[in-house]
């Protein structure tokens, strides 16, 4: 079973990972975005790490709702409302139970991913974070490690795609050949989840 502490450690691990990888995310965002993905996401997850340490929310759902709200307030770019919606909807779907099973978490994360697709209007294959998140949720029933591998594979698989959402979509065919920064950061989030679970 997964308790509030597990989810706090997941958020902290994500903040550390995003901090380590911020420069790479921004480099990926230079050719096809506005070169701020790493900076924005680091600012957001640093704020998340602070707030979950400070407020010590006591249920898994409360941790994720709080984290999502902080991201919307602090990121400043499109990844804020997108990741914020992902975490908040997942948290709301978990309700207010003190512990959740991996199966319950998988179902809730799927609700969160669906909400992100509705918010941004993106589908798999559009070269967005969805290309890492959908395969991750699909593999999560198997194990956290499988979800991590699926997310990383999904992020790598965005390279040959043409972007159909966000600023990169204005570039048309010139977006081909670059790995999507949003899918890459989504893979970091899922990798931090597996790391937190010890897988």
């Amino acid at each position: 079973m997964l308790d509030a502490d597990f989810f706090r450690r997941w958020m902290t691990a994500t903040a550390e990972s995003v901090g380590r990888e911020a420069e790479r995310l921004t480099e990926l965002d230079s050719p096809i975005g506005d070169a701020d993905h790493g900076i924005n996401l680091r600012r957001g997850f640093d704020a998340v790490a602070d707030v979950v340490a400070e407020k010590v929310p006591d249920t898994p759902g409360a941790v994720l709702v709080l984290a999502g709200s902080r991201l919307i307030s602090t990121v400043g770019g499109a990844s804020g409302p997108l990741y914020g919606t992902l975490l908040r909807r997942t948290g709301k779907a978990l309700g207010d139970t003190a512990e959740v099973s991996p199966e319950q978490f998988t179902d809730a994360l799927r609700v969160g991913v669906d909400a992100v697709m509705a918010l941004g209007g993106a589908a798999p294959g559009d070269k967005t974070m969805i290309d890492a998140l959908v395969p991750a949720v699909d593999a999560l029933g198997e194990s956290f490690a499988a979800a991590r591998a699926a997310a990383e594979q999904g992020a790598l698989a965005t390279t040959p795609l043409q972007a159909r959402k966000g600023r990169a979509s204005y570039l048309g065919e010139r977006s081909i050949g670059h790995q999507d920064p949003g899918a890459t950061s989504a893979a970091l989030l899922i990798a931090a989840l597996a790391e937190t679970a010890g897988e």
Partner: protein
Amino acid sequence: MSDGTVSSGEQGAQLVGVVLVSHSAAVAASVADLARALIGGGGTVPVAAAGGTESGGLGTSAELITAAARSVDRGAGVAVLTDLGSAVLTVKALLAEGDELPDGTRLVDAPFVEGAVAAVVTASTGADLAAVEAAAAEAYTYRKV
């Protein structure tokens, strides 16, 4: 952040507020100035600009949007117009929260500059939120060539 007192429209009617959300503080403020200037002799519509991040950079701030919406809320609804990407997504995410923005706040699907002018001019007549939204959306149909 600016607003104004209710001084026109039907007697006692409250005016719809307008919030302009851009990645750039200068763009949001300038479009607000332009729309206000085109009201003419009518009243003063509560218009607020929410441009850029709180630290003055380019981007979108949920806090600035929330504060702007509250500052223009006169109880008749608030029309929010946005430019790109994160401006659209942040307003949608705030609306999905349910309690972050005043009751009767709506994201209006409209071109930013032309829609803002149409929204503010329509609001100055004392029109309701649906009419303000329709006027702003109609700006999409105005072809220039």
